[in-house]
């Protein structure tokens, strides 16, 4: 005796599994329903968006030591450009692209800095957005990850330890290199050494005579410049004086570079918390946030 039963026909799923979807960052194969790339942990949504919308997105990396302000900078930048008040306009693609902006601005509005970006790439925030430049008819598609400073340092010191960092830096059209102006101004040279390491790494990563890093645009952003106002007056002179190694590297090895100063908090104080002493912003007044990004996107657009 036979009995009628409803059986799901899953063969189309098997067919989908048979076709590998390449990750947009590392180009390694993944299953169609993977959320993150199993090789580099980049969101597979980037690949799906590229496939369905048939748009080629440029990549832009924000690099610098841990605690330099990459998350604050990117979050603030996203929020400012998406408020429709600036000449540049930004429109996020995908809900995941708003996480960074939300986390950063909510923390700043509470009078805190956002939590440190975890070292694990699967917990990083990625931004995929459209940027409309003035005098440009077509918007620029951009992908920007908020990478952890310690992961970047680990990759620089031990190449191939963070696959996603390497792949990202290989592919991206330009870099925002963040340097802590307050620490430089206070006489600490660790920022100088770290920046030089990063620049050397970039040059070694791709030194193709045409496409290599020596020809890609590099925006050097002195963060926390509210604490040293002279930096705003002339960032290049500040670099020459307080970060001579970095300045010389840029002069010798990078044809398209420019120095900028940026700050988000007008003043800071320390706060004793159960986790130790933390810096807190006393007020939020972004300054010099848009300029390096605008310059970099213009440079990428020209190429």
């Amino acid at each position: 005796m036979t009995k009628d039963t409803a059986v799901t026909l899953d063969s189309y799923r098997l067919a989908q599994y048979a076709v590998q979807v390449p990750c947009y960052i590392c180009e390694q194969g993944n299953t169609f329903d993977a959320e993150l790339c199993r090789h580099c942990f980049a969101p597979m949504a980037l690949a799906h968006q590229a496939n369905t919308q048939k748009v080629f997105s440029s990549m832009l990396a924000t690099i610098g030591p841990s605690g330099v302000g990459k998350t604050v900078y990117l979050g603030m930048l996203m929020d400012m450009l998406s408020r429709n008040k600036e000449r540049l306009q930004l429109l996020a693609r995908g809900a995941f692209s708003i996480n960074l902006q939300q986390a950063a601005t909510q923390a700043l509005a509470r009078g805190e800095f956002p939590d440190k970006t975890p070292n694990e790439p699967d917990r990083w925030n990625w931004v995929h957005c459209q940027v409309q430049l003035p005098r440009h008819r077509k918007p620029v598609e951009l992908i920007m990850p908020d990478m952890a400073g310690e992961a970047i340092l680990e990759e620089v010191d031990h190449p191939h330890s963070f696959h996603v960092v390497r792949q990202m830096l290989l592919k991206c059209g330009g870099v925002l290199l963040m340097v802590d102006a307050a620490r430089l101004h206070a006489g600490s040279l660790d920022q100088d050494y770290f920046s030089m390491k990063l620049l050397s790494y970039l040059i070694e990563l791709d030194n193709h005579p045409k496409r290599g890093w020596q020809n890609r645009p590099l925006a050097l952003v002195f963060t926390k410049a509210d604490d040293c106002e002279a930096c705003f007056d002339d960032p290049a002179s500040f670099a020459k004086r307080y970060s001579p190694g970095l300045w010389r590297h840029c002069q010798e090895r990078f044809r398209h570079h420019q120095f900028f100063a940026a700050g988000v908090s007008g003043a800071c104080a320390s706060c004793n918390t159960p986790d130790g002493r933390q810096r807190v912003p006393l007020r939020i007044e972004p300054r010099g946030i848009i300029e390096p990004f605008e310059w970099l996107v213009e440079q990428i657009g020209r190429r």
Partner: protein
Amino acid sequence: MKKQRLLRLVGVAGLGAAVSGIGLDAPWLACLGTAGVACGALTFRRRTDRKPSAEAAALSAKVAAVVAAPPSPGEPVDTGGLVRQMLAQGRYTLLLRPQITANLTQAQIQKAIEALVEQTALVPAGQLCIGLAGKESDPLENEGYEPASSGVVVEVEEFLLDRYPVTNSQFQQFVDAGGYAQAALWDPQVWPAVVDFVDRTGCPGPRFWSGGRHPHGEERHPVVGVSWYEATAYARWAGKRLPTDPEWEKAGSWPLQLSDTTLLQRRYPWGDLMERERANLWGSGPNRTVSVDEYEGGVSPGGVHQLIGNVWEWTYDDFSQAAHKRPGLALGTAMKCVRGGAFDTYFDVQATCQFVSGENPVARKHNVGFRCAVSTADLVAAARPDPLDTSLVEAGQAAEEIGV
């Protein structure tokens, strides 16, 4: 012996400064030469440490030369001229001190009162609930009027607050009058650092000026790039002071006491909802300072303009842990309070009457200015304006309209 000689020379220096300032026919105004006295005293005392005899002789000669010299062109030689000059400089409150008015004519007093009414607004005495800023990150949590129980209630005396922040042209008067060289105007502890308070070209003045002059076309913009000490020195020179933190907050939040336990306070001078078109903040203005006459919609009930936006304003008080109501806050350096937000203030919750931030008192930021206050108790009774009497203001406005 050495001390006696010092005192004698200080007296000569002070007398010389006072006499040269006011002319020989107005000894009652000698108190206005206090700046000169103290300047001479401090200058001499500092130099005495190095070369007492030579310096003393040089100073004596200098004082004698000043006393003997005729007044320079443009310098007032009589009481009337000095009063006119002080009115032009915006130092009218000095003329309304009880010690001074007895020696002025009724017309001179009247002019000083008119200037006072035109340029300052009365903030009545009363209670204020402070310490509400800690709850502001979530506007819904702080919706509507705040009950007095959530903060600390303080009593504020009646005072007059400048209707507008101090402008570049007003500060120019201070610079031109040699304010940076008068030691009596400055806190003694900062006097050695005053030489560093220079503009882009090294001349004494706010940080973003050049050649001791304010930027062209920005006469009515609020002065910025001044430290707390420069603001205090200006206020002293003008016969005023910086408002205290509760005073500033009271002028903006304009509390109403409905009962012993209920204080109605505004979040913004115009009400409880942020209306960005009423203030020069990030996104609502040109991202730089604007004239103090703009954004008239942001005026407070008492007639004070631009309390919110355009520039942060120094207040007299220290920015301590109590001011910010944040447990565990540790300040690396002593800070002074700044209030009101500026043209680049990003979040609405940081541009309220209750929000207070801090700044290093020697910092000379691009978005920090100030306005002055004066206690009515320090002025003659006739100068204490009736908040309901607007006749003097209307007279002033009518005079402006016909170009007087």
